[in-house]
């Protein structure tokens, strides 16, 4: 099996209002020097060994990510089944 971790974030060109609000919170807490906060989501998939990167890209582009507003990247990890 393989574990795929997909990181999804709003594209750089799009204002992330959640990130802006959280940045305001951090500076209120006294953390100076936080330039930017951007919030995304993480999707974990457990897939068979036959699943190719091309298939994962297809899953991302067809459903997991809306590429009009979001960017993504993913990492693949080998998982040894006990």
């Amino acid at each position, binding site marked *: 099996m393989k574990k795929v971790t997909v990181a999804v974030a709003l594209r750089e*060109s*799009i204002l992330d*209002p959640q990130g802006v609000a959280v940045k305001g919170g951090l500076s209120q807490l006294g953390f100076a020097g936080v330039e930017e906060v951007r919030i995304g989501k993480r999707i974990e998939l457990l897939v068979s060994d036959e699943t190719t990167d091309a298939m994962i890209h297809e899953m991302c582009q067809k*459903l997991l990510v*809306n590429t009009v507003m979001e960017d993504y990247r993913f990492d693949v990890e080998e998982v040894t089944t006990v």
Partner: protein
Amino acid sequence: MKFAVIVFPGSNCDLDMYHAVKDALGEEADYVFHTETSLEGYDGVLLPGGFSYGDYLRCGAIAQFSPIMEEVKRFAAEGKTVLGICNGFQILVEAGLLPGVLHRNTGLKFMCRTVELKVENNETRFTSDYAAQETITIPIAHGEGNYYCDDATYAMLQTNRQIAFTYTDNPNGSRGDIAGITNKAGNVLGMMPHPERAVELLTGGTDGLKLFTSLVKQGAHHVKTTV
């Protein structure tokens, strides 16, 4: 005219939509469940507001895989009328029937209030009963109504006159104050405000009714020209 009101799990404006068509407009309407696969006999399809599939993943992202949506796509490709309101608009963009995307309001809040819209294009089948640049009052109720598209898409929307409604005082950060757009062919309209909630004086106004009467006129015209 006979309208199909599509009911997804989590739709919550389906009753308002049905009531607007049946009682305020005086036309026929049926509820069509998302598991159905035929729209045979209908002149128009209405995708209501709500939180289909709990807004899981993204608003409208899962609803596009409902069995009925293949038929809605076919129906739209034939040039028939498809109207998506609020979550219905989100479903239409996720399904690729309209360009762009709807994301979080810039103020992060779910906004439930009555707003002013401008009719940007009254030469569509959805807006012909409105005057050009008419200002109307319609309720909104959404957390993810912030319309976004890239520069090329925005230019295309302007060139093809696909922008049907804009906000006079942008409540959610939408690009170009966009409140509602049509597809290039003009037979699919998506909008975040709720015209189906503005069809009776008793509940605050009738500015939404003209959208539905426009459709009926267009429908009657269509029948006349095809006979």
